């Protein structure tokens, strides 16, 4: 099932488990496969096991059980080879506030063994690419959150990795910075065939960026597929209507009830999931019209990844946060 190409630049995970002392199984037997050049979105609430998975795949945390191969190398047996193949921007851009952007690039390229002349040119190229050339001589302590994230990405790319791990790369960023980062990540996958494993708790991020999405909850992958496939799987759109006269609301509820089960709506509106899909919309309008109910507002909502999460876990992604196991948050700094 796995091609040689996938193995060389992809990720294969089988029954991966991470159990912490006196804690829950942060990751509980997950299987996944990411092909070379693919952007894989790992979606889930805080504490679901996303970061723990990334730490294991980047060799910073040994798995309790299971196997994982990254870039064709086993994460337990071939740690140095895995690290040479990957770049990673982990949660919270880990930068030194006292060093400049250029000094960070010099350190990173040198530690990865690039020659002196290549260090300078690679550093300049990456700083230019992430739009930080103008700020290269400024100390990172003076950077904004977006600038730090962009530098973090540039550092992760210093040694031209084939696989890139991004752990919640846009958390806390404004829309502009987020969009700029998305564009760069898309470009890396499309033009440089870099495999991207991206964790996020933002639905729109997974939707916009990922070729495929894995939804993780309580350490289990509860759904996997392209965003379109996942939405189609639970696939009923919601229609929400608001009567012009408040007095018609009850009758409107009865009419819409013929087309599907109720869904959450605004206080004055009525919403149902359409059993027959969006083609029923015209029928809904005709039915309301024939009952003499004047419509103030009518809207069709396509299914979202939140609907998928809701369908798979019984909870909405927003507000589904749990406490992250202490050791997981502590990453490689946790004593074994």
């Amino acid at each position, binding site marked *: 099932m796995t091609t040689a190409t996938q193995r060389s630049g992809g990720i294969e995970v089988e029954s991966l488990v991470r159990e912490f002392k006196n804690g829950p199984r942060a990751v509980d037997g997950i299987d996944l496969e990411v092909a070379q050049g693919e952007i894989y979105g790992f979606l889930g609430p805080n504490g679901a096991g996303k970061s723990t998975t990334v730490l294991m795949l980047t060799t*910073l945390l040994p798995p309790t059980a299971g196997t994982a191969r990254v870039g064709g190398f086993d994460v337990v047996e071939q*740690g140095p080879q895995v690290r*040479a193949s990957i770049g990673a921007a*982990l949660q919270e851009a880990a930068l030194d506030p006292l060093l400049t952007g250029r000094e960070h690039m010099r350190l990173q390229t040198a530690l990865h063994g690039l020659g002196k002349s290549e260090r300078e040119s690679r550093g300049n190229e990456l700083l230019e690419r992430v739009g930080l050339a103008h700020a290269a001589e400024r100390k990172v302590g003076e950077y904004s959150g977006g600038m730090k994230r962009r530098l973090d990405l540039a550092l992760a790319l210093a040694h031209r990795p084939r696989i890139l791990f991004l752990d919640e790369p846009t958390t806390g960023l404004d829309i502009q910075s987020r969009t700029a980062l998305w564009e760069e990540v898309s470009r890396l996958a499309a033009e440089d065939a870099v495999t991207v494993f991206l964790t996020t708790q933002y639905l729109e991020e997974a939707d916009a960026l990922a070729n495929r999405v894995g939804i993780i909850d309580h350490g289990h992958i509860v759904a996997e597929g392209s965003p379109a496939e996942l939405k189609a799987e639970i696939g009923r759109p919601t229609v929400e209507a608001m009567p012009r006269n408040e007095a018609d609301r009850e009758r409107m509820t009865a009419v819409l009830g013929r087309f599907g089960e109720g869904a959450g709506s605004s206080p004055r509106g009525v919403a149902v999931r359409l059993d027959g899909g969006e083609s029923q919309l015209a029928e809904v309008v005709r039915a309301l019209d024939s009952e003499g109910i004047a419509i103030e507002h009518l809207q069709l909502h396509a299914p979202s990844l939140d609907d998928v999460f809701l369908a798979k876990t019984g909870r909405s992604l927003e507000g589904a946060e749990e406490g992250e196991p202490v050791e997981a948050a502590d990453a490689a700094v946790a004593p074994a």
Partner: protein
Amino acid sequence: MSAGLGSQVGQLARRSTLRTLRQPAQIVPALVFPLFLLAVNTGGLKDATSLPGFPTDSYLTFVLAVPFIQGALFSVMNSGTDLARDIETGFLNRLALTPLRGAALLSGLLAGAFILGVVQAVVYLSVGLIAGAELAAGPAGALVLVLLSVSITVAFGTIGLFAALRFGSGEAVQGLFPVFFVFLFLSAMTLPLELLTTDWFHAIASVNPVTYLLEAIRSLLIEGWNLGDLALGFGIALAIGVLGMAAASSALKTRLVRT
């Protein structure tokens, strides 16, 4: 593709040096506080020179050894808190994802302690000499004094690295500072060992390695060239450094659980 050990040490030493130089809050207290205590001790205990058997008639010369040890104690805090911050911010993880060797990380981090040690030694000695202290070993003795001071500073720095790797927090490292000061106070800090007449104090001071570090420095200031004292001082600094480095290496293996 991987950088050699020397190159890795060089890169991290450069970073450590830049960090030290860009943090006046690390350098200034390490210079000012010991000099302040030097002034207090010299003013308050100058009559001690009249005690029979006191090795010099200049208390300033005698007590000038103390700032070198106090300064070295600051290196415990500085090197330790720097590394603890790297752990807390995740910078250590960034380094762990490169082909960096553990030995390079620890050696590179001590470069900041080395630079601070040189600056401290030069400043303490210069201020002491300007204030009227003697240097019996002459100009060559000044070089050896700086070398000894830097050795002690780097050796103490390894204890800071161990504490940071063991506890993982800057607060824990800073909590060691008072403990180390107790070692200083329970040594022949203000009087020569043979003049400490209280039995328990003499017993503790005579097994406290800080006493012999002080005596090595004093030998250059007061006597000239006492090779026995110097060898003991350098030997103790080396032993602390080796033990500290071994403990830090072991703690690093636990801390850095990369496969």
